[in-house]
C-alpha cells in the first residue's frame, strides 16, 4: 500500500489529528483561545478538503469512502463548525445568563471526536464499524449534555442521555447480533446478498426490530422521542444545537446507510412501519411543541416533528430519497442554526425562553426579521429554504403513491405553523419595560447575515444544496 492510496482517507485522518491537537493544545493554552481558533480553522479546512479535495472512492477493508459518504461528512463538518461558532459566547464570562461554560478545549475536542464517530458511521462497510461509529458519535454527547457547571438540569440531561443512550446501544447491538445470526455475515455486501436471498427470515426481522428501536432513539423518532425534550432543555444551547443538527443528521445517515443499501430489499415491507412512525413523530412533535415556553424544549419537539417529515423519504426510492434527506438536512441545519444564534444572543441577558424573545423587534429589528424568516422556513413557507426541503420530501412520498401520508404530513405542517407563529408573535410583543438595545459582535453579525442569506438563497436558488443532494444520491 502506497501513501497515495491513503489520500481518500485524508479527511478522516486529519480530523483525528485535529481532535488530538485540540486536546493537546488545551493543556498549554491559558484561556482556551488557541483551541477555539485551531478548531474552527481546522474544521474550515476540512470542509474545503471534503468539498474540493480528492474525489476518488476507496475501500479500506470495511471502511468505504464514497461520494455519498463525503457529502454526509461535509454536512457534519459544517454543522460542527456552526456549533463551534455558536458556543463562543457561552465560554465567555457574562456571555450567557445561565452561566459560563468552562474547559473549552475539552469541549471542542469532544465535538471533534464525536464527529469522528459520525465519519465512521457513514463510511461503515460492516456492522461493527457501524456500531462503533454510532457509539463514538453518541458517547461524547453524554459528557457535553452535562457540561453546564453546577446546573441540575444539565446534570439531569447528561444522566438521562446516558441512560437512554445506553439502552439504545444495547438494542442496536442486540439487533446487530440477530442480523449476524440470520445472515452469517457482518459486512454490508454479504449482508445485502443474504437479505435479498431470504427477506422473510424471522431472525432478520427480529434484528431489524431491535435496530429500528436503537436507531429510533438516536433519531428521536416517536414513540422513542421522549428523552429529547428533557435532554435538549437541560443541555447547554450549543450542545442542543449539535444534537438537533449534527447528531440528528448522523442518525438519519445511519438509517439511510443501513436501510437504503444493505437492507434495501426489505424496505418495501417496512414501508408501513416507517409511515406509522412518521405520522406518530409528526403528531407527537407538533402537539408537544405547541405548549412549550422554553425555547430549547420547543426546538426538541419541533425537531421530533422534522424527523417525522424526514421519515417520509424512507418510503421513496433510493437515490431520490437520499437526495431529499440531504437537502432537507441542509435546509433544516441552516434554519436551525439561525434560530440557535438568535437564542444565543437573547440568552446573554435573559433566559432562552419564549418570553425572552419579547420585544426583540424593538431591541434589534434585524434579529426579529431573521427570527420571522427562521420560523417561516421551519414551517415551510416559500421562498425560504425550508419550503424546498419539505417539498422534496413530500414529493418523494407522493411519487410512490402515499397520498394519505402526504396529506397527514401537510396537515401537520399547517398545525406546526400555528406554534411557529406564536414565536413570531412573542418577538413583536412589546416588553413590559423598555429593554436595552442589543449589540452584536462582528462574528455574530457575520454568521447571522450568512445564515439569513443562506435561508433565502437556498429557497430561491437551490443549486448548492441540490449539488450536495445529487452527489449524495449517486
Amino acid at each position: 500500500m502506497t501513501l497515495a492510496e491513503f489520500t481518500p482517507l485524508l479527511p478522516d485522518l486529519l480530523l483525528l489529528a485535529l481532535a488530538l491537537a485540540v486536546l493537546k493544545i488545551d493543556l498549554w493554552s491559558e484561556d482556551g483561545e488557541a483551541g477555539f481558533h485551531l478548531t474552527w480553522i481546522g474544521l474550515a479546512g476540512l470542509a474545503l478538503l471534503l468539498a474540493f479535495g480528492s474525489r476518488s472512492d476507496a475501500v479500506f477493508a470495511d471502511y468505504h469512502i464514497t461520494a455519498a459518504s463525503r457529502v454526509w461528512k461535509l454536512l457534519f463538518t459544517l454543522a460542527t463548525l456552526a456549533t463551534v461558532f455558536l458556543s463562543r459566547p457561552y465560554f465567555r464570562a457574562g456571555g450567557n445568563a445561565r452561566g459560563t461554560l468552562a474547559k473549552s478545549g475539552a469541549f471542542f475536542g469532544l465535538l471533534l471526536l464525536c464527529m469522528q464517530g459520525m465519519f465512521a458511521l457513514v463510511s461503515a462497510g460492516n456492522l461493527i464499524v457501524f456500531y462503533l461509529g454510532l457509539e463514538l458519535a453518541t458517547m461524547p454527547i453524554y459528557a457535553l449534555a452535562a457540561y453546564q457547571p453546577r446546573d441540575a438540569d444539565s446534570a439531569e440531561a447528561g444522566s438521562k442521555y446516558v441512560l437512554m443512550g445506553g439502552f439504545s446501544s444495547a438494542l442496536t447491538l442486540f439487533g446487530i447480533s440477530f442480523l449476524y445470526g440470520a445472515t452469517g455475515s457482518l459486512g454490508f455486501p454479504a449482508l445485502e446478498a443474504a437479505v435479498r436471498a431470504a427477506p422473510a427470515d424471522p431472525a432478520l426481522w427480529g434484528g431489524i426490530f431491535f435496530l429500528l428501536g436503537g436507531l429510533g432513539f438516536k433519531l428521536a423518532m416517536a414513540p422513542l422521542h421522549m428523552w429529547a425534550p428533557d435532554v435538549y432543555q437541560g443541555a447547554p444551547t450549543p450542545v442542543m444545537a449539535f444534537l438537533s443538527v449534527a447528531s440528528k443528521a448522523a442518525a438519519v445517515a445511519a438509517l439511510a446507510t443501513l436501510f437504503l443499501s444493505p437492507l434495501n430489499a426489505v424496505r418495501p415491507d417496512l414501508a408501513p412501519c416507517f409511515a406509522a412512525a412518521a405520522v406518530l413523530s409528526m403528531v407527537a412533535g407538533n402537539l408537544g411543541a405547541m405548549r412549550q415556553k422554553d425555547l430549547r424544549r420547543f426546538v426538541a419537539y419541533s425537531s421530533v416533528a422534522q424527523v417525522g417529515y424526514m421519515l417520509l423519504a424512507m418510503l421513496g426510492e433510493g437515490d431520490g430519497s437520499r437526495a431529499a434527506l440531504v437537502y432537507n438536512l441542509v435546509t433544516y441545519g441552516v434554519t436551525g442554526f439561525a434560530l440557535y444564534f438568535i437564542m444565543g444572543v437573547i440568552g446573554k441577558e435573559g433566559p432562552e425562553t419564549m418570553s425572552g424573545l419579547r420585544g426583540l423587534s424593538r431591541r434589534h429589528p434585524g434579529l426579529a426579521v431573521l427570527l420571522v424568516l427562521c420560523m417561516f422556513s421551519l414551517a415551510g413557507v416559500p421562498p425560504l429554504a425550508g419550503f424546498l426541503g419539505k417539498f422534496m420530501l413530500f414529493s418523494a412520498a407522493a411519487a410512490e403513491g402515499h397520498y394519505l401520508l402526504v396529506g397527514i404530513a401537510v396537515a401537520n405542517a399547517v398545525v406546526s405553523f400555528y406554534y411557529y407563529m406564536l414565536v413570531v408573535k412573542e418577538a413583536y410583543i412589546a416588553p413590559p419595560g423598555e429593554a436595552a438595545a442589543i449589540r452584536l459582535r462582528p462574528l455574530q453579525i457575520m454568521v447571522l447575515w450568512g445564515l439569513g442569506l443562506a435561508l433565502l438563497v437556498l429557497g430561491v436558488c437551490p443549486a448548492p444544496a441540490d449539488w450536495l443532494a445529487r452527489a449524495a444520491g449517486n
Partner: protein
Amino acid sequence: MNVRDAFFYALCALLLGLAVLTVAAGNLFRAALALLGVLLCTAVLFLLLQAEMAALAQVMVYIGGIMIFVLYAVLLTSELGGRMPAPSPVKMLLGVAVAAVALGFLAGLAQKTGAGAAAARARMHAESATKESAASSADAEAGVNIASLKTLGQKLLDPKGFLIPFELISVLLLAAMVGAIAVARQGGAGVRGGSEPGAAAISVKDQGGAGAAESRGAPP
C-alpha cells in the same frame, strides 16, 4: 438429557433467579452482588458454547472491572443495611408489561427462528452430503479456531481484518475518558467559569424541577 444439557438448564435457572434478585432485592448491595452472579453465570454460558475468549473477557471486564466499581459506588453512596423504597404499583405494572412483551416477542422469535434454523441445518446437511465432506469439515475446524487468542490478535491488527474497528475503539475510549474527566472536574471546579449567583438563581427558578418539566410548558 445428558449431563451437559442438565448443567445448562441448571445454570440457566440460576442465572434467571439471580437476575430476578437483582431487580427485586430491596437492598442495593445485595442487588449488586446478584448482578455479579448473573455476569458470572453468563461467563460460564460462554464457556459452554466454547467461546473461551468471550468468557475470559466477560470475567475480566465485567466482574474484574465494572462490578468492582459498582460495588465501590454502592458502598460509598448508600447505607449498607438500608432498604430502597418499593416502586409504585403503576411502575411495577408497567415493568411487568414491558417484560411480558419482551419475553413474548423473543419467545415467538425463538420459536420461528428455531424452525427456520432447523430447516437451514437440514439444507446444509443435504448440501454437504453432495459435496466432498472432508473440505467442509476442515472449514468447520478452522471456524472453531477463530476464537483462539492468536487468531484474534492477528485479525485485530490485520488491515484487511478488524484494524479499523480496533482503532476506532481506542478513539472511543479516549472520548469516554476525556468526557468523564471534563464532566467530573466541572462540578468542583466551576470556579473558572464562575457564573454570577444571581443569574444561576434565575435560571434554576425558570427551569424548575425535572419531573414537572412538561407542566412548566403550560401557559400561566
